[in-house]
């Protein structure tokens, strides 16, 4: 149920953008419980319970096994693939004391130093990063 059942020209165009998972209605449905778990971490008592026993706390949410593993391993790209949205995941990495830049670096596969340097040098160029079907763009 998490994939569009019919051709969807509007959504399809975004699939051509490299390295990008756009949060659409299908992914929102797929990631509903994962994202709601993240929302629960907006309360201090829940953060405490989660930190005390992550596996036990996760039982409160009907996550898929893939979602559960992604959370426990802090595999941010996997969480995105399982329907997570970055602003929801932010509650989890904030609970961990991590920053957006740290997590962004992890998702690119770079070390935080390399990533921070790339940003200081003006960021990732759009050249070659615009289209899967036309890498020259």
């Amino acid at each position, binding site marked *: 149920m998490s994939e569009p059942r019919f051709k969807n020209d*509007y*959504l399809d*165009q*975004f699939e051509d*953008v*490299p*390295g*990008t*998972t*756009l*949060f*659409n*209605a299908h992914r*929102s449905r797929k*990631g*509903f419980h994962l*994202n*709601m778990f*993240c*929302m629960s*971490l*907006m*309360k*201090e008592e829940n*953060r405490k319970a989660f930190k005390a026993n992550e596996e036990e706390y996760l039982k409160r949410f009907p996550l898929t096994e893939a979602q559960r593993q992604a959370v426990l391993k802090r595999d*941010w*790209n996997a969480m*995105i693939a399982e329907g997570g*949205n*970055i*602003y*929801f995941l*932010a*509650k*989890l*990495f*904030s*609970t961990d*004391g991590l*920053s*957006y*830049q740290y997590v*962004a*670096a992890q*998702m*690119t*596969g770079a070390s935080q130093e390399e*990533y921070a340097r*790339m*940003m*200081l040098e*003006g*960021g*990732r*160029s*759009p050249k070659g*990063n*615009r*289209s899967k079907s036309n890498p020259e763009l």
Partner: protein
Amino acid sequence: MARIVAGVTTSHVPAIGAAIDLNKKNEPYWVPIFKGFEFSKKWMAENMPDVVIVVYNDHASAFSVELIPTFAIGCAEEFPPADEGWGPRPVPVVKGHPDLACHIAQSCILDEFDLTIANKMEVDHGLTIPLNLLFGEPKEWPVRVIPLAVNVIQYPPPTGKRCFDLGRAIRKAVESWPEDLKVMVFGTGGMSHQLQGPRAGLINKEWDTRFLDNLTKDPIALTKIPHIEYVRETGSEGIEMVMWLVMRGALDDNVREVYRFYHVPCSNTALGHIILENVDKSPRKAAA
């Protein structure tokens, strides 16, 4: 009558909030960023509005995946700062202007913009960081604030044109409010940035600069930018710039650029900030 006199846009990068809250403003990384707002704070103090309409996106704080309003207007007396995972930001509670907000909601809805009404809502960094950047860190915010939350998280967000047209409807609403009030509109978020996946860190200075130029030169051209162009050219989170068009639509056709600041990087983001003033400052007749 109430009158919109100026519009301000600024990014609302959460790391700016952390730099303020953790006293890092004097670190070399942050000095140029806060320096970029010195003029703006002075300008704001000299042109202090009564009410600011802050167009921002809620980052999964007031609205989760359970309820996703495309446009929601805050009509409450006050809006407490949300706990985004590290405790609420130590900023003052945001005071609303329920009378004007309800009037804007009525006027816009009758104008066929079906706004969602939020009578209880917490506000996150998307709203409070722009207040810090323009008003500093006072004990109480010096203005009343009407939050206008826009969905830019789950696709599709509203189109740029819809945002611009909503701005126009808001202008009409404000100008039909009988009380003399000086109103500004803040458009927040942007500019180019991508926070997720292997393409995170994308920055497009050329595109951003053109966008900033066109806010005065050709705002109608900006309303025609399709979602895919924002994503391709400015990263998945660059779509936040549609919110700047609500601000632009709320101003007159003829505006003057008072100030501009653009800085890379601010965490993962190209920070953009602009102040636009209506050229025509004469009092207006109340709209019929």
